[in-house]
């Protein structure tokens, strides 16, 4: 009991460690949330080159502008000026309405409007593209319905069916408002959480280097020394995880169709898995700066490998191997299955199994720790 009390004291004495386990994680979590809090992009600037200057072209521009995602911000005299603005990043999209568009439409020779969107900014570009497609479909349906009403089909419903014979209805499941906040934040925060846990594990063990060396810390009972070291941090990070989950469900009102208790239990084994990985990284480097460097290489791209932004089924084998080496990827699978699908807990058992496998790096860390504890005092400290 005496030893554990000293572990808490060690933690309190180091202001950096205190920040890492108290205010810093919530602050960064809130910041990530704040960045995406708007949920959907609105009024993304799009330019127009109107070469027709007709009633039709003006009507079309009104329809496009009505889309909440885009705003026709600027007019350009010719395509070249518009393209230059695209290159300069001033606008995310460009519409070119050709000369004689109205005349050709009336003559029954359909004009073609050329629309460009910036796909270098993929996420933004996709939104502009979808908005343009939807706005165009709406505009067309209106124009064609009016045409049919005038001639062949005197009833509104029939005229609409002639204009748009098959309707398509897209239903986003599990994220019903296709909200970017929910999509990205619910994945980015766990990724950041993993970084915090691994980094803090390495740093907390490195404090022993600055005190009396590793051998002094681990002498006699290396495993117990390790467990006593990691327990307070593990509990604090588990608390952060629970706070994130509770805020997500009860404050932001994001769906949780499965079991909260099961998820919280999975968070605990995720924390322990991350700590095992962090401990192994530390013992392999036995130096704070190198250890943190390795930890950074290991978990910094956690979000990219998680498979939320880019599907894991489309990753190469090597990428999937690296993905499975990170505890947070397995946790994320469980979180999505529980929170979004409300899937049976049995279906998440494989992921729980993978998380439990992280006992292996934990054991490796214990073995390395035991070896250090046998070396004479002082020589365990790397210079």
């Amino acid at each position, binding site marked *: 009991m005496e030893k554990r009390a000293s572990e808490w004291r060690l933690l309190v004495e180091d202001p950096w460690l205190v920040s890492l386990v108290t205010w810093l994680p919530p602050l960064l979590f809130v910041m990530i949330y704040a*960045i995406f809090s708007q949920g959907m992009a609105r009024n993304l600037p799009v330019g127009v080159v109107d070469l027709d200057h007709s009633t039709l072209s003006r009507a079309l521009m009104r329809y496009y502008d009505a889309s909440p995602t885009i705003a026709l911000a600027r007019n350009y005299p010719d395509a070249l000026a518009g393209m230059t603005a695209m290159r300069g990043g001033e606008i995310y999209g460009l519409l070119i309405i050709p000369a004689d568009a109205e005349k050709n439409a009336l003559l029954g020779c359909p004009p073609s409007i050329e629309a460009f969107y910036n796909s270098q900014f993929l996420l933004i570009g996709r939104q502009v593209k979808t908005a343009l497609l939807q706005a165009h479909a709406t505009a067309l349906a209106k124009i064609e319905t009016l045409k049919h009403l005038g001639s062949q089909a005197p009833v509104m419903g029939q005229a609409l069916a002639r204009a748009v014979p098959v309707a398509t209805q897209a239903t986003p499941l599990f994220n019903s408002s296709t909200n970017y906040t929910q999509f990205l934040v619910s994945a980015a925060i766990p990724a*950041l959480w993993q970084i915090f846990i691994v980094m803090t594990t390495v740093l907390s063990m490195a404090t022993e280097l600055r005190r009396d060396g590793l051998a002094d810390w681990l002498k006699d009972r290396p495993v117990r020394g390790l467990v006593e070291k990691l327990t307070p941090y593990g509990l604090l990070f588990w608390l952060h995880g629970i706070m994130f989950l509770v805020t997500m469900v009860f404050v932001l009102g994001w769906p949780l169709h499965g079991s909260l208790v099961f998820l919280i239990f999975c968070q605990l084994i995720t924390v322990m898995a991350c700590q095992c990985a962090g401990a192994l990284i530390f013992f392999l480097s036995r130096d704070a700066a190198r250890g943190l460097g390795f930890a950074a290489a290991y978990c910094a791209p956690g979000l990219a490998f998680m498979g939320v932004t880019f599907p894991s089924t489309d990753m190469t084998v090597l990428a999937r191997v690296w993905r499975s080496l990170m505890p947070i990827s397995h946790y994320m699978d469980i979180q999505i299955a529980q929170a979004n699908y409300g899937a049976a807990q049995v279906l998440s058992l494989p992921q729980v199994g993978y998380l439990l496998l992280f006992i292996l790096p934990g054991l490796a860390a214990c073995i390395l720790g035991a070896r250090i504890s046998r070396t004479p005092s002082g020589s365990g400290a790397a210079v």
Partner: protein
Amino acid sequence: MSLFQLFKAELGAVFTNIALLLTLFGGVLFYSVLYPLPYVTQVPREQQVVVVNLDDSQFARRLVRMVDATAQVQIHSQASSLAQAEERMIEKKLAGILVVPENFYRDLLLGRRPSLAFAGDASYFLVFGTVLEGMSAAGTTLAAEIKVTQSLLSGQALALAQAQHHAINLGLHALFNETQGYVNYVIPAVFVLILHQTLIMGMGILGGSENEQQKEGKTVHWQTASPAALLLARTLIFIIIYTLLSLYYYGPAYAYYDIPRLAAMGDLALLNLVFLLPVSFLGICLGAVLPRRELATLIVLLSSMPLVFACGFVWPISAIPGPINTLMQLIPAVPAIKAFILLNQMGADFRQIFPQVLHLTILTAGYGLSAFLLLTRRMNRFAL
């Protein structure tokens, strides 16, 4: 101590610090392989979908085959009811459900405008978008076929009916990243960020190591040099190292991943210099302040994710809350990422990135002055 001696001593300090060398060379090389790794397939394809065909007319079956034929979607299996489909989707982790409603063909013939329903898993945005794209491509083709048939029935010539099935066409073109590949989207921004972060880490480790040595009472080689000379020597060494590393990134690495390189060599070199200066100074500031060398790595790593999200290539700047955006302007990576993407990926003229260059220059002045003052302070404290 002469400037040349100082330069030599600095070189020695850099190339004997293992943690620093690992971060600089190891980090930059390792990340150039690791970051693109999840995205090397570029575009998700053949997402698996389960079909509920409640109509089962020949026409409906043809529609299902058309969906299967698109590059984006692959039909995994048929389910007999919506409930069964949903269950299978969760169990097998499929991307979505396509529902052909009852009496689809009859309603179509009667002019009742039946609707095709797609339900996709929107917890994965890219997958959802891909499935939707494939399904609506098939749907649009089908609708066009129907319209042409209707026009033919009402007595139009085939050629005319085919040309006129829409009153106005919309030609959509992706610009700059034509294939909408993920590598081309993420890597140009992330590589700039990696250079930025590792440079700051390296400077921080160097400064932190010296602070540790000072605390232990060891003598540090630059105690007799002037702060200005130290600033000059250190910045010069790091800029030379990072120019070489940038050459690797913007050259062979970009070529390997087939990322466009539209910038002229001179423009890119100039921008790179304007970018490396404020970053070096910021790193020196951090190094002068931090008591231990590992703390720079910690701060840099924790700041990476907010930086990626707030620098404008993932999420539009206009949608980011003002205070966060203002704070981010203090980080050189934010204007630099935009400038590099505009110049190298989108082919902007150097004049068009002038606002970003100016921004970086102001940061250079600010961080340069701060670095000078902090080094002076540290040296005075050491002298006492």
